C-alpha cells in the first residue's frame, strides 16, 4: 500500500512539474511577444513623436539583423480623432556581408507601429524585410509542396522569434 502510494505520488509530482514547465513556457512566450518585445524602448516617445519611435524601431531591427539603416523610403502617420494612431514606413537598409548573397545589396524593411492607449506608448506591430527570399509570393503551384511550405513557415516563425530575442537581449 505504502509502496504503491509512493510510486503514484512520484508520478503525480513528475506530471505536475512537467505541466508547470509547459505552463511557464507558454506564459513566458505570451509575456515576451505581447508585452516585453512590442513596447521595448518605445515608452519614451509620445503620441506625436511617431517618426522618432519608427526610427527607433527600425534601428532595433537593423541591429538584430546586422543591417545598416540608410534612410526611409516612406513614412506615414495617421490617427483617428480621439482614437487609434498608427505610423508605418519602409526603411532602406544594407544587409551585412553574410546576408548580402541571399537578400541583395539593398533591401526595404517594412516597420509598422501603433499607439497603445492602455500603455500610453507606441508598440511594434510588424517589422519584416519586404520581398524576402522565403516570401510566399515566390511559390509556384506545387513548388514547393505542402511539406516544404509548412517547413518554410515554421522556419520563418522560428527565425523571427530568434531575431526578437536578439533584439531584446543583444
Amino acid at each position: 500500500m505504502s509502496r504503491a502510494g509512493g510510486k503514484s505520488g512520484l508520478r503525480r509530482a513528475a506530471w505536475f512539474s512537467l505541466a508547470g514547465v509547459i505552463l511557464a513556457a507558454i506564459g513566458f512566450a505570451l509575456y515576451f511577444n505581447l508585452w516585453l518585445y512590442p513596447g521595448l524602448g518605445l515608452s519614451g516617445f509620445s503620441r506625436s513623436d511617431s517618426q522618432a519611435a519608427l526610427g527607433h524601431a527600425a534601428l532595433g531591427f537593423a541591429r538584430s539583423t546586422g543591417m545598416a539603416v540608410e534612410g526611409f523610403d516612406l513614412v506615414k502617420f495617421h490617427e483617428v480623432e480621439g482614437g487609434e494612431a498608427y505610423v508605418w514606413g519602409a526603411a532602406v537598409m544594407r544587409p551585412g556581408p553574410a546576408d548580402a548573397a541571399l537578400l541583395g545589396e539593398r533591401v526595404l524593411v517594412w516597420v509598422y507601429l501603433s499607439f497603445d492607449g492602455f500603455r500610453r506608448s507606441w508598440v511594434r506591430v510588424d517589422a519584416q524585410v519586404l520581398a524576402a527570399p522565403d516570401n510566399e509570393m515566390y511559390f509556384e503551384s506545387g513548388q514547393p509542396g505542402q511539406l516544404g511550405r509548412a517547413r518554410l513557415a515554421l522556419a520563418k516563425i522560428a527565425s523571427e522569434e530568434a531575431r526578437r530575442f536578439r533584439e531584446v537581449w543583444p
Partner: protein
Amino acid sequence: MKIPCSGNAALKWIVFFFMAWVAVRGAQRTPEIASRLDPGTFYGALVGDSANAAIMKERHVDFSSETLRALNLRLSEVVAKPESLAAGTLVSRESLAMAKRREMARWYRESINSEHARFNLERQHILAAGKPAEPISCRPAHTASAAGEARP
C-alpha cells in the same frame, strides 16, 4: 431532478427582471434606438470606425507598393549581376517576374478597396452631419422658453 427552492416566486421574479433587463439593454443597442438616444456617440463611432478602416486599407496599399519597389530593386540587381542569385533558393529571374505580376494585381485590388473605404468614410460623414436633431428623450427646446410660447 428536483431543485429545492423555497422562494419559488422570488426566483421567478428575479429571472423575469434580468430577462427584461437584457431585452431593454439589447434594444438600446439597436441602431434604430441608439441613434436617437445618443446621436453624437452613435454617429461618432460610425465615423471613427470608417476612418480606421480607411487608414488600414491605405496601409495595405502602401505595403503592396513598397513590396513592388523592393521587387524592382532586387530585379534590377539580378539583371545587373546574374551571379548574385544564390542557388537553392526560391528566387530566380522568372520567379521575380511572376512575383511582380502577382504583386501588381494585389496592388490594384488593394487600391480599389482603399478607394471604397474612403467613399464609405465620406458617406458616414454625410450621415453624421444629417443625423436626427432631436433624440427621443429630449428636453424641451431652448427656443420655447426664450420665445415664451409653448410648442407641441
